[in-house]
């Protein structure tokens, strides 16, 4: 039984007719064709699907899409403004914090949520915040460095 919902993603309002049982991740990737948000485990255990909902980091693979109505949803595609990269993106690129890149969108958005709350975090605060973001390539060092550099 499909329903009509309205989603605001990256400041764009979408009118969608969808199965209400679907997750936000599925709708973002399949209906909106925004594939920057990744699906790593479908169980909320890896953080690859992280998006921001009203400035809070959320595992979109566990988030029912209908709960997204009336909220500000931000995906990785919405981070750069008018071709200008966000400092997090710039620092990730510059400091070699991107290897395979699969965890990158989730990591960057998780970091953004942290910086909203704590504009100048300590290394410990950064590590705690990204403890729910799995990375298999980097050992996390350069990611932490990039987040701290973006905070400055």
């Amino acid at each position, binding site marked *: 039984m499909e329903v009509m919902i309205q989603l605001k993603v990256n400041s764009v309002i979408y009118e969608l007719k969808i199965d209400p049982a679907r997750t936000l991740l599925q709708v973002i990737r399949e209906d909106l064709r925004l594939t920057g948000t990744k699906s790593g485990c479908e169980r909320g255990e890896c953080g*690859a699907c992280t998006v921001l909902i009203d400035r809070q980091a959320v595992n979109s693979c566990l988030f029912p899409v209908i709960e997204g109505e009336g909220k500000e949803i931000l995906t990785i595609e919405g981070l750069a403004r008018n071709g200008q990269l966000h400092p997090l993106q710039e620092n990730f690129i510059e400091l070699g914090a991107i290897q395979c890149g699969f965890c990158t969108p989730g990591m960057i958005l998780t970091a953004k949520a942290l910086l909203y709350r704590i504009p100048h975090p300590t290394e410990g605060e950064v590590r705690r915040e990204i403890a729910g973001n799995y990375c*298999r390539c980097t050992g996390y060092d350069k990611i932490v460095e990039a987040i701290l550099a973006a905070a400055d």
Partner: protein
Amino acid sequence: MEKRELKIIGGRFSRAEALQKATGELKFSADITFPHMLHAKILRSPYAHAIVKHVDISKALKLKGVRAVITHKDVPKIPTMHQFLHVPSHMFYDSFLLEEKVRHYGDRVAAVAATNPDIAEEALELIEVEYEPLSAVFDPLEATRDGAPVIHNRARRGEKTIEIKNNIVGVREIEIGDVEKGFREADLIIENVFRTSRPNNAPLERTAVICVPGPGGSLDVYGTTQGIHPMRMNIASALGLPLHKVNCHRVYLGGSFGAHIHTGWIEPICAFLSLLTGKPVRGEKTREEMFLSCGRHPMVMRLKTGIKKDGTLMAQYFDVIDETGAYAVSGESKMVLAGGWFLSMYKCPNMKFTGKTVYTNTPPLTAMRGAGNPQVNFAVESQMDMIAEELGIDPVSLRLKNHINTGDTFYGQGPDVVCVVQSCGTEELLKRGAEAIGWNKRADHTTDRPWVKRGMGMARGFHTSGAGSPKPSKFILDYSGAIVKVNEDGTAVLINAAADTGGGSLSTHAAMVAEELGLNYEDVVVYMGDTNVTLFDVPTHASRGTYGAGLAVKKASEKAKRVLLKWASEILEASVEDLVAEKGKIFVVGNPDQWVSIKEVVETAQTSGWGSVAGEASIRPDACPPHFTVCFVEVEVDTQTGLVKVLRAVTGADVGTPINLNSVEGQIAGGLHMGLGFALLEDTRFDEKTGKPLNPNFRDYKTLTALDMPSIEMLIADTFEPTGPFGAKGVGEGATNPVAAAVANAAYNAVGVRIKDLPISFEKILKALK
């Protein structure tokens, strides 16, 4: 190859594709879609060992949205090929696309293609299967006993059918010198049995593939693979298709660590379904299926070492029982590789290796970062530590005395791939590493809590850079091709088939093109390409991206450059020998005002009808230079909980010329992370009775998070590899190999507990402390 002044290589630069990854623009295999795409799902066995007596697909076929349901009856009776890496006479085949007999929990019984994944999932539940369960065996030692359940009766090696007895895939025996004599001459003999665990590659990307049928029975494939050419050969072979009808497209991977050297079953299954239905078919493994499709071979290793009082090695005997799971995707090669790594660790006049690869009713294992070396290193480096203590010699000194060095023999892929070491930074790394960690302070175990003890441990290791050798190997292929062309706007295009799984190989290749042609790094385009336009390349494995694939890129660039210089010499009216290319211009040496831009050269060539600038090369490396590594760790062991916390790590690598320091450091840190996981946490577990996986998800399969990682200090040795492109070697696997032994040695130093089977869990520490 002589050293020369480099403009781009050797520094730090941002990777070409990093921008697209940071914005989410870059598409991985799972991000690619086609109109009218169908979704494939595989029905998997709930039994670890059973005969598939009957499959009733009628109800599944009736479900709205289902377009095809296939079982073993419908697929070609062609044994499937998995790893196009071995010479054809050596290739191992022991499976079909779908099985009549299932050999592990999760083995493939049937497949469905439907209009959406939920319908496909529902269809699986409507397939009725009658199984005849068989008794199963999960332990490799049990599996070889007479009377154990027979997992495979026969297999194929090349064109020959071979009988499989006692679940043994293959055996190997090598002896150098006379070990019995060597043991007699030793002052001390030490013997131990070590066991390693079963970690999963666990890349964040889940394997995905789309097969798109085209005109004339052709097929386009986009999928997660470390080798588009091997994937093409595997799919064509499994389906009985002419090779040229299959075209595999290169896609960036989200990690792999060996999981995609081989082509599995999902790719040819989707290919078959797409040809059957005439529609694109997409398959994507769930995370649980990822835990069923790859992993490091557990090894039971017996190591006997004979050594003189002064620390000189006299004899070593190493026996390996290598477990491969229910299918041997690469035959017995991991065991054979283990033999080669063992022979390459230390100088010893008398060495013997025996090994066997064994089937068990568990999901098939594959390559995983290090391919036998992490296992071997754990045994050898733990034992060296024990020897050092017994003899009263400093562990670092013992390594310095005995390590394989420049001029020694090195076995790059088992005993058949042999070369001579031409660069070695081990001594420098050991000395600098000991200094950096504070090795002379390791007798002090006190911390601010009396029940927590501090300790330090170290290990050294290496890995190969590719599988090259002076003569072509009898069992493994190792060559790469590349094409470089220059556009009319002075930019260059790199056309090759090497894979980038995250290590940065393609941006490294772009840097090589830029360095060689005298372009700015930003002016090199990496074309994704496919099997139609690229030259053959083997899977990008064995840390060969920079070295093996890089050699072809450099050669192709050199050829393109020769064409450029010849035409520039005509435009500038100067001799080719007097020309140098830099930053997009070609100068006359000593005459800075006499130059022409590369853009102008190519434009002139076009308008004058001289032709195009291009170069191609296909290179079989004639060496496999090892990259050497060390790992020093400082740990805290809590004697109340048994928990081992790694506080600091000093890791070093000898990579020859580092092409991009960011990438080298990234690999070292990533290798450390995976090595620490192997040491302390990572293991896939199975129910003892049913063989059902107990932790096929990220909640229960533990890896180190950002909070668990130690502080890392990195050392890069100052060496130059004469056979390498710009003097470079690999780094990806060497970075992980010595970590587990370093941690085991540190735990021993802290609390006197020697753990010989991985992982070093807190239960084992507590038990040993009692």
